[in-house]
């Protein structure tokens, strides 16, 4: 196998590769690249909100039209916050979770040599890249990038005159369509692979929760993304060909956009968190040296969250003037989602309860995930209650919620996952001390940045405004805005530690063993990094991935391809193990 890999020319091996691991790493690099851009945009947003009257550092580098003398005008501000969110959602979180980790982990963790359709897999990456570039390059058009918020509500988005943005908004729509196509291709591949390519003995209920989460996520992507495509297509026609799907003047329905958009985008928020929930489950079990608490309950609550996720979209629209009876149903269904979410949370706590915890950076980030997800989930329940949401809708309370679930949840999950699987991906260890410092600082400054936003929201601070000092009633809140901005800038700066560690460890990190964390799932059976084709021989699976500290086993872990001594706890007839 490995001699074969050496002969592959560079371009086939690293650029147009069909190897799921290379494609996963490509998605990882793409997402991290866009994360830098999205992060810098966030810094600009925060500068403007904290110090609207001061010229932005380096602001003079921008063309005068956008930033006269380094001051951001409201039009440019709209484009900046819109693109921050759009990039983070469509080009960072979704591709890094499903694209990067989905690709890298699915075949390895189920014991397959590759995806069912490696070429389709490659195509999905090479469709995503131009989509991303199309979105980012809209900044350089005459009238600038999309400026309607990532939700692109018409009529604002449907008529170019309202924002003054012509090409940029249409490019944004095109990019969303393209990236969506890529993610459907990925989803078809993941679903087929997980159903059909599992190693012998890998029953569905022996799959790691990471795989369960990626599987359900793929189903969400498969079913929700086409609806986004249809609504974005109609929006594009409204903009370019003069149709009136969403314009009341021609019989169109503005609210219909919101319904269809959220029919996609609420499931999409679960696309953005379920994989991270999977990673965290595996990481917590590994570093607590205990089986996951309530494995089946965990798998079923992933399904429950995903299923319910399709019937709660209206909670984004309580203020939109939809039928109040409908609003009440959406309120009820939304609150029900808290049940499977709570099951997961209690099971995570049950998993670490009295475990022999090892505080590696991966574990620390996973613990941060659990704690911030609790805060984000609780703020979600506030907002799910219609009367409360009437008050806090479209305020910084929502922004706080978003960031507790997406940064505090998804992104801490990503940090945990990178820390955990980096040795497998690159064959080297990251520096743990640096990543521990990075974690501590990120956790502190994350909370200092985003927690006060709850208070801003309660005080009525609207989201999506360029200059809080323009409103008298917000003036007393300005010191809080400045405080948030300073912390946000530090939070941004701290990420350099992680980026530096990531890059330097690629070359100078300690060589990784096969199974540095003494974990059980199949990716740790393969060499680090695994060669083309992954396994020397396809492993046979004897039990689930959470057999930690099994009585009667000398070590405190039992890889899935090793039968338990003295009668395996498995239904598979005992075959001889391929690996010693």
């Amino acid at each position, binding site marked *: 196998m490995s001699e074969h890999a050496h002969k592959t020319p560079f371009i086939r091996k690293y650029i147009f590769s069909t190897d799921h691991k290379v494609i996963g790493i490509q998605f990882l690099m793409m997402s991290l690249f866009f994360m830098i851009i999205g992060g810098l945009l966030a810094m600009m947003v925060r500068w403007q909100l904290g110090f609207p009257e001061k010229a932005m550092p380096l602001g003079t580098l921008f063309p005068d039209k956008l930033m006269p003398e380094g001051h951001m005008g409201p039009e440019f501000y709209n484009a900046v916050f819109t693109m921050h969110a759009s990039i983070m959602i469509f080009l960072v979180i979704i591709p890094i979770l499903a694209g990067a980790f989905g690709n890298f982990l699915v075949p390895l963790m189920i014991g397959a040599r590759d995806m069912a359709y490696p070429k389709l897999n490659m195509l999905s990456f090479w469709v995503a890249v131009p989509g991303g570039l199309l979105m980012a390059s809209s900044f350089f058009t005459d009238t600038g990038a999309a400026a309607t918020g990532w939700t692109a509500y018409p009529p604002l988005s449907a008529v170019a005159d309202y924002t003054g943005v012509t090409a940029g908004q249409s490019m944004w729509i095109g990019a969303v369509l393209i990236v969506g196509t890529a993610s459907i291709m990925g989803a078809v591949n993941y679903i087929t692979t997980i159903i059909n*390519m599992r190693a012998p003995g890998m029953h569905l209920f022996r799959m790691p929760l990471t795989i369960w989460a990626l599987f359900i996520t793929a189903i969400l992507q498969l079913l929700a993304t086409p609806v986004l495509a249809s609504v974005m297509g109609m929006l594009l026609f409204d903009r370019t060909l003069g149709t009136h799907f969403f314009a009341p003047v*021609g019989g169109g329905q503005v609210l219909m956009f919101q319904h269809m958009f959220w029919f996609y985008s609420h499931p999409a928020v679960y696309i953005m968190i379920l994989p991270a929930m999977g990673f965290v489950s595996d990481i917590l079990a590994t570093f607590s040296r205990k089986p996951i608490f309530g494995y089946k309950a965990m798998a079923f609550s992933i399904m429950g969250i995903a299923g319910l996720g399709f019937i709660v979209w209206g909670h984004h629209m309580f203020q939109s003037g939809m039928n109040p009876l409908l609003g009440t149903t959406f309120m009820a269904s939304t609150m029900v989602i808290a049940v499977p979410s709570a099951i997961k949370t209690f099971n995570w706590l049950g998993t670490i309860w009295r475990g022999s915890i090892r505080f590696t950076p991966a574990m620390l980030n996973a613990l941060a995930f659990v704690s911030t997800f609790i805060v984000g989930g609780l703020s979600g329940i506030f907002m799910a209650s219609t009367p409360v949401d009437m008050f806090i809708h479209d305020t910084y309370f929502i922004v706080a919620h978003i960031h507790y679930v997406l940064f505090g949840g998804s992104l801490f999950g990503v940090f945990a996952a990178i820390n955990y699987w980096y040795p497998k991906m690159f064959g080297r260890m990251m520096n743990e001390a640096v990543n521990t410092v990075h974690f501590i600082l990120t956790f502190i400054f994350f909370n200092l940045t985003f927690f006060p936003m709850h208070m801003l929201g309660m005080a009525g601070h609207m989201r999506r405004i360029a200059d809080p000092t323009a409103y008298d009633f917000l003036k007393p809140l300005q010191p809080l805005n400045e405080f948030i901005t300073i912390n946000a800038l530090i939070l941004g700066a701290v990420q350099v530690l992680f980026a530096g560690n990531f890059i330097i460890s690629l070359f100078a990190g300690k060589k990784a063993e096969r199974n540095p964390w003494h974990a059980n799932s199949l990716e740790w059976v393969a060499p680090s990094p695994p060669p083309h084709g992954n396994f020397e021989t396809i492993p046979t699976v004897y039990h689930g991935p959470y057999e930690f500290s099994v009585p009667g086993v000398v070590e405190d872990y039992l890889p899935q391809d090793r039968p338990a001594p003295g009668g395996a706890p498995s239904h598979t007839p005992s075959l001889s193990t391929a690996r010693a």
Partner: protein
Amino acid sequence: MESMAIPGRPDGPAGALPNHRLATFVFLMAGTMLFIGLVGALIVLRYAMPQWPPPGVPSLPLGLGTFNTAVILLSSIALQRGVRAMRLLDAAALRRGLTFASVLGALFVALQALQWSILIGRGLSFAGTTYASTFYVISGAHAAHALTGFLWLGAMALRQRQAWVTDAMQRQIEVCALFWHFVGLVWVFLYVVLYLL
């Protein structure tokens, strides 16, 4: 779809369906959701209007629509006979089935184009009313699928010349056939929604 680059499981798929059929079904679910989205929009827009079709708007040519529905159904039947012949190792009948299906598919697309031009001639402009826009967008999205489908069928017919069918070809034809039946099935549904309701 191509076969696997690297052999998968030593003992065949873990699930009940082979990869290519499973992947096609999964993919077609996404296609279904696309049309559900579009038809959902149609329903919302329709019930928002006091009258549908709006007064003064030319009506759809029901006869042509019905005839075309028959065309695409016949095409599916021809294809299905071809696929059954393939299972019985009758390569000539397979090729006949593919060719008939593809020609009928081409006829379907051509008649759709004719229908559009008739409607445009009668003044049903794309952007004029939501009635027209939904009709054109939905039938257009479907026509794009039908176009892909009949070209694909035609390509299969041209490539299948030998008296035997390779495994890879057999898989491709099965996938193509599933896709084409999907296109036909969606059209029947759209016919009901667009012309009859």
